[in-house]
């Protein structure tokens, strides 16, 4: 647990805003990152000298050597306290991972996501003249929440409302989801974010911890843990589970839709398929679901939520660059992986620049999921996340054609690197 989170700004006035603004801007412009990645891929050895990893083989190599390239790089960004994602392998990591795997097994995300998506769609205005709606606040946020809240079992309502007795107040649940969004937002670039962004995340992290602490008894019994199981361990895992899954999946969903709108022919083809199948059957049509699932993965390849990933280098080592020469890596430094460059590496992905959801990945199937990490430390909930996004996208495909609602101000509003609003309207 972080004991002293707050630190005053040691940079000159304006410098941090510039740095963070630049990072966020770069993060939003995936095409630019892909271009930079393509450039660096030509000289991987030189990029490696500067701690940049760009080729698919090199990225895979880094991600499969967690002891040489440590996940502790995430630690400064975890404002709500330590969690699996920033731990080095050890007893605590293994215990927490076992608990997480156990909790994930209870999930049946497709059922819940489909059900919530249908409900949300029913509530959306569906005429051409109707007002716009917010894809994040009115749709994705709730679908993801309903799909993953069973991870808390019978305590789900208590956690979401922060009370001993859950009364089904959506306002309180929304507050909980906002808290988790700001905490998760720090994961992307927390340590370089501006002081106000950091402080907001810390305030939300404080609220989240207090919320979990207040219902720790409910969580213990819902998870079937004995009284001897330390409360601090339950709290760490519950807090981590609360923030890490939801916001990242929602952001991925928003990015998937944003990218889909940039490929109108793909969007139209999918919509016509959905229309051909018909509204009631579209949810259970195996081939269609499989197709949308592939589309989601391909869209995520174009817009991964973590286009840049950092890993700490605890001791001197050699970085496999994927080029002719490897690069030495000094202990105490860190390396930056352009996972977006690796996902477009022509050496690993055939015809990588083409949007091709049904590409045959062959033996490189794991590379297809690179946006979730690689090797043992990849995201354990990746399949659930893609299933949820598949359900959400199927729901959107049943609607009339959608566009970004540019009319009333900016359609997309960002809070740091994350989208906080994505207004849509019917074309």
């Amino acid at each position, binding site marked *: 647990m972080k*004991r*002293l*989170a*707050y*630190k*005053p*700004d*040691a*940079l*000159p*006035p304006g410098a941090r805003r510039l740095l963070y603004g630049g990072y966020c801007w770069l993060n939003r412009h995936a095409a630019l990152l892909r271009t930079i990645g393509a450039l660096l891929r030509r000289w991987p050895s030189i990029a490696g000298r500067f701690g940049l990893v760009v080729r698919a083989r090199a990225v895979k190599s880094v991600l499969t050597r967690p002891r040489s390239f440590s996940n502790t790089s995430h630690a400064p960004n975890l404002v709500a306290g330590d969690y699996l994602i920033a731990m080095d392998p050890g007893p605590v990591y293994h215990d927490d991972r076992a608990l997480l795997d156990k909790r994930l097994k209870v999930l049946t995300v497709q059922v819940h996501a489909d059900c919530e998506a249908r409900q949300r769609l029913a509530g959306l205005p569906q005429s051409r003249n109707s007002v716009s709606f917010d894809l994040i606040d009115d749709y994705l946020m709730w679908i993801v929440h309903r799909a993953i809240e069973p991870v808390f079992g019978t305590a789900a309502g208590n956690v979401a409302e*922060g*009370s001993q007795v859950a*009364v089904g*107040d*959506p*306002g*309180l649940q*929304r*507050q909980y989801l906002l808290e988790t969004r700001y905490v998760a937002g720090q994961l992307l670039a927390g340590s370089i974010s501006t*002081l*106000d962004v*950091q*402080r*907001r995340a810390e*305030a*939300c992290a*404080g*609220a989240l911890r*207090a*919320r979990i602490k*207040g219902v720790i008894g409910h969580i213990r019994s819902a998870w079937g843990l004995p009284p001897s199981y330390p409360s601090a361990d339950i709290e760490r895992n519950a807090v981590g589970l609360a923030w890490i899954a939801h916001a990242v999946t929602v952001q991925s969903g928003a990015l998937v839709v944003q990218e889909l709108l940039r490929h109108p022919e793909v969007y139209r083809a999918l919509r016509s398929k959905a229309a051909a199948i018909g509204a009631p059957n579209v949810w259970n049509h195996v081939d269609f679901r499989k197709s949308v699932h592939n589309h989601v993965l391909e869209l995520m390849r174009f817009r991964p939520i973590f286009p840049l990933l950092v890993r700490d280098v605890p001791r001197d080592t050699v970085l496999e660059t994927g080029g002719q020469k490897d690069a030495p890596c000094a202990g105490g430094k860190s390396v930056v992986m352009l996972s977006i460059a690796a996902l477009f590496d022509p050496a690993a992905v055939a015809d990588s620049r083409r949007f091709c959801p049904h590409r045959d990945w062959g033996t490189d199937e794991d590379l297809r999921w690179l946006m979730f990490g690689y090797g043992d430390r990849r995201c354990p909930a990746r399949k659930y996340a893609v299933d949820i996004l598949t359900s959400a996208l199927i729901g959107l495909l049943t609607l009339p054609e959608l566009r970004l609602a540019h009319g009333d101000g900016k359609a997309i509003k960002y809070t740091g690197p994350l989208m906080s609003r994505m207004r849509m309207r019917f074309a």
Partner: protein
Amino acid sequence: MVKIVRQQMICIIAPDWRGGVQLSKSDHYALHRLFLDVGVVHFASIALLPPMAGAQLPSLMLELVVEEGLRPYDLLSRLVNHPRGALRSLYRGYLSSHASQKASELNRQLLERLMSWQHIADGGFVGARDRSVQQIKEEKKLLEQARIEARVLKATHGKDRASFALALARWAFGDSRFEWAAEAAPRSYWREKGASIIAKVVAAVIVLWLALLWLIGFLARSAACFDTWLWNRSNPAVQSVFGAVSDASGWLLGVSCRFVLALIVVSFALWVFFVALPALFAFFRRWLDSLVRELDRPTETWSSLSTYLAVWLVGLPLVLAGLWSVVTYTFWPQYFKDVVAQWIPAGPGWKQLLIGGLAILVLIGIGAIFYRFNSLLQKFSAWFYHPHEDDIERAQQVHPSIEESEARLVRGTAHMISLTDMRSPHGWSAWWTCRSLRIVTFLGRVLFTESRLGNAPGIHFGHWHIIDNGRRLLFCSNYDGDFGGYLDDFINGASIGTTLFWRWTKLKPRAPAAPDQPGVAKPRAFPPTRFLVFRGVKCELKFKTYARDSMLPHLYRFDACRLTIDEINRATVLRNALFGERNHGNDDLIMRVIES
């Protein structure tokens, strides 16, 4: 840059308060638990503000002093959405509550209202900078435990400072409770090396600017020469463009150089007048002190009046002449030279030297006559310098509710709430006050970074809010010691700033906010000031009675750490010394902190 300071101190002023004078015990407890749980509030207080003229009901003021960097919306959102609902309970009278209404709806309503009532400080000063509530508490624990351990270690290592410090450091490193302290206490940019970096950047910018101007001119001239050489003939159009660029850069370079030179000369002259001469000549130092003293003099005397007039007659023309010289020399150097040449007597150098020597002798002679005159006419001198009694009509009487409030805080950090009215015209007074407060806040942020505002120590958080559409000035302060000592610190340590931002206020008659709270029976004015920043608070009795009469008692008070600034600083020093490198300096610091 100062907004980050201003946001740390927020006052929420809820109008038309109908909730009575006393907060219930449950409200007290709920608020206390709320602020402890949230963990970012240093101080909080609640008080009733008397109604404005024409209004019937008082306002409820909630003062929140919080950690750096939190935006009001984020803070209030955190407080309002706290599961205990303490703020909902406090402001229940303002919420349209129906039995069917959900908690989230009430929270939303309340948050909207609080955001519309909140005022971030128009100016403020933070004493114990760069520390969170949690850090202060943890460092306090470290200090307490280190003192306990030191008592044990004294028996074995008491004779040698280095071995004692080493043993204490080993203990601290070995104790897992203090792992967090291994990292040096964080310091913000302005407390670390900001000022020196900025000075270097300014110097670099000036040099680069001059170099750039020269380079542009040089390149233009070179290009013109190259053009002539290349074509073996002069192209008038090209030559005129390059000539214009060269002339413009030359003119800008000249203006910039002369401006820098003028600034250097003015700075040097000021340094000679205010630093070198006082250091070299005691009589000059005494004269300068006497000048400031007379300008600050609280009472009307002939000496202070004559000094005041003399500054108008001599000082103002000198300042205007200085400004004229800088501007003229910068933009019209030839005109400046011509004017100055007219004033320099024509003649050989020895004559000018003689005239200068004579002028100095005449000045010394005048001074000697005055000195002699002064000692000969003791009676006249006494009359000239005699201070009248301050025109305070009554002995200071403090309202019992204020005394009661102060008595409750006797073991903690003292607290003051002062409410004054802006002088007419309000817009003008509010604008000037606001500008003054911004300057004070900026200086506090950039220069006074080590817990002292000017020479005034002991201020945790002092903040000013211009409220009620610029009609009233609210001042809240959390400080160490007692009220008299606190105002003495202002009078002796930060008189210029204090006078500057209080001089546009007065006290209008006002009814008390509640029957047992203080009102203002007779109108009062802030003590008169001279040249904006002199006198004012130096009229000690007037100022203290003015400040006393403007005070309001608090109904609720929260103090997260209950430590003085010195204690906070000592704990941080111990942390850095214990976990820093072992050397004589750190060993000495450890001993001093442990023994203090």
